[in-house]
């Protein structure tokens, strides 16, 4: 009796866990949909900024801006690590942290002064365990990062960069390529690699666009001065959106696998239970027959 009871208990526990993982899978799927919608809508903005930058670069011949210049010597750098606040999302955090750790080791070799900034409880806990001292931590970015909050950080980085206190800004995050593919990357956001942020979906360049003679208010050079920081902010915001989407995907995939595993376990435990029960019955019958035999 004792054995079957234990098996039943165990099966119940697994059923309960399966319920939780199944719910989490559904929630993650819904959140993923929303996060993706946001990312797609944000893409419209990115695309327009890129278009403007292209229009401007057609008129301004020699573009010079401090944000575009690569500094010869990188003395101080910022590394922002975007992880999640919650666990149960498979290798999502691990792979980001691995990338980040590699970059940190590399910077140490180059004797770069590193300012480490962390977003998400997972990264904070990990680096605390490693004994690293982060310069700033954020936990407010979940699946819907607000532009206002992100802009605040972006402005601070721009300030640090233009005042020369920092020579490079890197972000470690999970880049969203498509629904089936996300890759952990460390990207250098400052200095800017190019004028325009690249939108997720490549616009078909083939369409013959007439070059339009624009009227510029104020002159193109001045618009560019404002456009470049904006371009950085958009890229920066996109990192947050990407990591939000990727986190939900990772969680959904992990929870789906967990649910499937639970199903399998329930199946095997059920058959184990049936076998144990049958064995018990057989044993009892044998005992009854044995008892009857003995009475004869």
């Amino acid at each position, binding site marked *: 009796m004792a054995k079957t009871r234990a098996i039943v208990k165990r099966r119940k526990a697994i059923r309960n866990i399966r319920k939780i993982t199944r719910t989490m899978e559904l929630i993650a799927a819904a959140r993923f949909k929303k996060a993706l919608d946001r990312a797609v809508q944000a893409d419209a903005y990115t695309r*327009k900024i890129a278009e403007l930058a292209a229009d401007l670069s057609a008129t301004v011949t020699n573009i010079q801006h401090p944000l575009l210049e690569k500094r010869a010597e990188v003395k101080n750098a910022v590394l922002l690590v975007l992880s999640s606040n919650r666990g149960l999302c498979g290798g999502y955090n691990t792979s980001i942290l691995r990338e980040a750790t590699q970059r940190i080791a590399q910077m140490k070799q180059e004797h770069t002064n590193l300012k480490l900034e962390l977003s998400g409880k997972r990264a904070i806990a990990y680096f605390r365990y490693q004994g690293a001292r982060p310069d700033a931590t954020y936990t407010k970015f979940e699946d819907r990062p607000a532009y206002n909050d992100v802009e605040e950080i972006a402005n601070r980085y721009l300030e640090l960069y233009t005042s020369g206190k920092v020579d490079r800004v890197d972000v470690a995050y999970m880049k969203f390529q498509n629904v089936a593919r996300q890759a952990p990357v460390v990207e250098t956001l400052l200095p800017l690699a190019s004028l325009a942020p690249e939108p997720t979906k490549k616009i078909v360049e083939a369409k013959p666009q007439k070059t339009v003679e624009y009227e510029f208010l104020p002159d193109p050079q001045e618009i560019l001065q404002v456009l470049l920081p904006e371009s950085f902010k958009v890229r920066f915001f996109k990192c947050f959106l990407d990591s939000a989407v990727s986190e939900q995907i990772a969680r959904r995939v992990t929870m789906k696998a967990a649910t499937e595993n639970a199903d399998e376990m329930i199946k095997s435990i059920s058959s184990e239970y049936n076998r144990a029960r049958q064995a018990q019955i057989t044993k009892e019958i044998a005992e009854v027959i044995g008892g009857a035999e003995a009475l004869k």
Partner: protein
Amino acid sequence: MADPIVFGLQCVVVTPERALLDEKADFVALPLYDGELGVLPGRAPLVGQLGYGELRIRYGGRTSHYFIDGGFVQIRNDVITVLTGRAIKVEEIDITSAKETLLTAIRTIAITPEKQEALQKTQERARSQIRMVERLRQQG
């Protein structure tokens, strides 16, 4: 041949968070960095830097008002694309918080010229929001 003449403007407003608006218009007034710019159909292509203030879109006798805060505008083929960090419909402006912001900005003492400038901007922004809401109340 030139493009067929279509009367009317298309006004598109996008923020980094979402595509806010895409609608037809007869007339659009934009707050440029140095003053207001009115746009009627047939406007020459333009790229401009925006300041903060009121975006007015008139279509068929109805006018909608938005508060926008910086960004850029591109006008081309009668399509006005407004790229801005923040765009709030005037009915959704939180006047109490705008007033609060204004008050704190007035009370704060700036130490450096940059901070002074930032404070000045915050004040003007809040004032412009309050002004917009009050004007709307008077009208309706």
